[in-house]
């Protein structure tokens, strides 16, 4: 177990700068998820931590020691790759034990640790098979077993679940989290899937274009996104963004735009006249006849647990609302919803930054 610190880390491939002046601290035993769209630099950052990419600027320290020039094999880290990267000519047993064999551990210890890992991961019966004879989920477990046996200081996961089907992915999410609880190892986990990030992370690091946009707990990012990008990235279905301006009518503060007008908290009065984007999560609205959020129903999606209403507002912008299964509504109906002013996120239209009051 260890702390990891990134200080002013940058990475360039030729003239292309893929990571810019990135600083971050990860505490001992923390499960940190690097989240972002493809090409945002999250995997590069993970590979730099592993020592598989050189560091162009700044420094990375594991347990206080700067590792910029330390070879991957001497960093005492374990990594699970997106495509498993198992050794095809070796049996599962040898795959898992290879790291221990490389460290010249006694055969008895290797055997005991491999069998213990296999027991935890429920792959004991496959120990004498080759990777080609395993299913995707089993291969993923072998890859995790390989990381587990080494008592590494830091665990790195590079999108380990992206090749699995939805059901198995949900199952493995729980298993990885349980494994982390059991081992308590510092973990850095890369994914582009915000559900994985929300369900697994102690701390999410949301990245965009090689920079960190926001760092916080899953609740922080969901409840108080610091910019429109974060608000749109986190949450399913995605947040509704309506553009308009803040209006003070002498008594109340409103948002006016997209053919709608709804209340904001009084503190926004000082921003009256400002062009803003209001973010409203689909789950934060309630059906109310004559409610300020209204539109013509385009389509109803049934998710099983609830219904998702896709509305078209007067100016043509789309709005999604989640409502209980019993809520009536068919395509073409006019529907209205209300929203608690405390649940409205207000962002500056030009910069996209959150406007706090």
């Amino acid at each position, binding site marked *: 177990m260890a702390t990891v610190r990134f200080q002013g880390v940058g990475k360039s491939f030729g003239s292309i700068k893929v990571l810019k002046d990135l600083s971050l601290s990860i505490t001992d035993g923390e499960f940190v998820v690097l989240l972002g769209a493809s090409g945002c630099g999250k995997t590069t950052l993970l590979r730099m931590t*592993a*020592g*598989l990419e050189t560091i162009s600027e700044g420094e990375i320290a594991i347990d206080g020691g700067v590792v910029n020039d330390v*070879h*991957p*094999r*001497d*960093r005492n*880290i*374990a*990594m699970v*790759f*997106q*495509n*498993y*990267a*198992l*050794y*095809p*000519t*070796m049996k599962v047993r040898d795959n898992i034990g*290879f*790291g221990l064999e*490389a*460290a010249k551990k006694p055969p008895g210890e290797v055997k005991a640790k491999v069998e213990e890992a296999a027991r935890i991961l429920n792959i004991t019966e496959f120990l004498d098979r*080759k*990777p*080609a*004879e*395993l299913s*995707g989920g089993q*291969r993923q477990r072998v890859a995790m077993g*390989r990381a587990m046996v*080494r008592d590494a200081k830091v665990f*790195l996961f590079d999108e380990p679940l992206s*090749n699995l089907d939805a059901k198995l992915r949900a199952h493995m999410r729980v298993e990885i989290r349980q494994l982390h609880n059991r081992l308590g190892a510092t973990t850095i986990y890369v994914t582009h899937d915000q559900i994985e990030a929300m369900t697994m992370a102690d701390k999410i690091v949301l990245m965009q274009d090689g920079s960190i946009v926001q760092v916080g707990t899953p609740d922080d990012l969901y409840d108080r996104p610091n910019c429109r990008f974060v608000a749109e990235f986190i949450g399913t279905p995605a947040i509704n963004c309506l553009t308009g301006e803040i209006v003070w009518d002498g008594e109340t503060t409103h948002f006016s735009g997209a053919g709608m007008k709804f209340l904001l908290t009084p503190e926004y009065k000082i921003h009256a006249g400002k062009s803003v984007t209001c973010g409203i999560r689909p789950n934060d609205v309630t059906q109310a006849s004559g409610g300020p959020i209204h539109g013509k129903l385009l389509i109803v999606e049934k998710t099983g647990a609830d219904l998702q209403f896709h509305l078209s507002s007067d100016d043509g912008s789309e709005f999604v609302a989640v409502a209980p299964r019993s809520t009536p509504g068919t395509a073409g109906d006019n529907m209205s919803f209300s929203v608690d002013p405390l649940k409205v996120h207000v962002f500056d239209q030009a910069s996209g930054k959150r406007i706090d009051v």
Partner: protein
Amino acid sequence: MIVQSKSSRTIRTLLGWAVVALFAFPLYYWLTIAFKDGREIFNYPPDVWFFSPTIRNFEEVFGISLGFGFGEQREVLPGGGNWRMGPRLWDSIVVAIFSTVLSVSIATLASYALSRMNFAGRHHFVSWILSTRMMPPVAVAIPVFFIYKELSLLDTYTGVILIHALMNLPLAVLLMKSFFDDIPKEIDESAMVDGASRWLIFRRIILPMVRGGMAATAVLCFIFSWTEFLFVLTLTQTGLKTVPVVSSTFVTSTGTAWGNMAALGAAAMIPAFLFILLVQRHLVRGLTLGSIKQ
């Protein structure tokens, strides 16, 4: 699988066999010559299917019984009678096997480095290796002859093995590099993070994965060495001669011993065939299956 009509399947099968026959027929005809006596060879129209087979050609070429003459009489006797080609076949086997082992070993190490390690001028290095094959071999034969003379390598197994290995290296390196390039780099990286040294990764993980590639490269190197003519002709005298060069001695001032030549050719196919049979079980595709999610 795409469903095909019965007639189209039949046509495809027949066409397939026709192509096989086209390639196999000259080989069959060559073999029949090896088993015909002098007069029958020149019959017109040729007796393709029905003739009186004889092993006289083989007896003449190898000296009554196979194995006779090994190490005893190494020079080639011009003219008819007993050619004693057994030792020549042995020369070919030694040269082909050792030059193949040498070139595949060096090529495997070199191409792993070219595929995986970053060093200055790596890409120029690959072009330079390829450029060594751009010159026709005959252009280097004379300089090599003088170099060999200085180094006392003329007419020695070492000399011929070295030149064959040298000629094979560029192709072997490029071929092996393509096999290494096909192995995902994540496998090396994963082992590296696991704490393995570069040598351990190469020996325990990567090498077993390119076994098929090594076998394919070995077959090509072996066939090149087995059939090489020019360098053996220029760099050897009486110490050793490989089959392609001694085959030319069947063309004499009193005529060409076609039956003997065919017998030697037929016999020479056996070691090459055995070698390919030996390595072909390693020519299995899909060795990386299961290592990564494609």
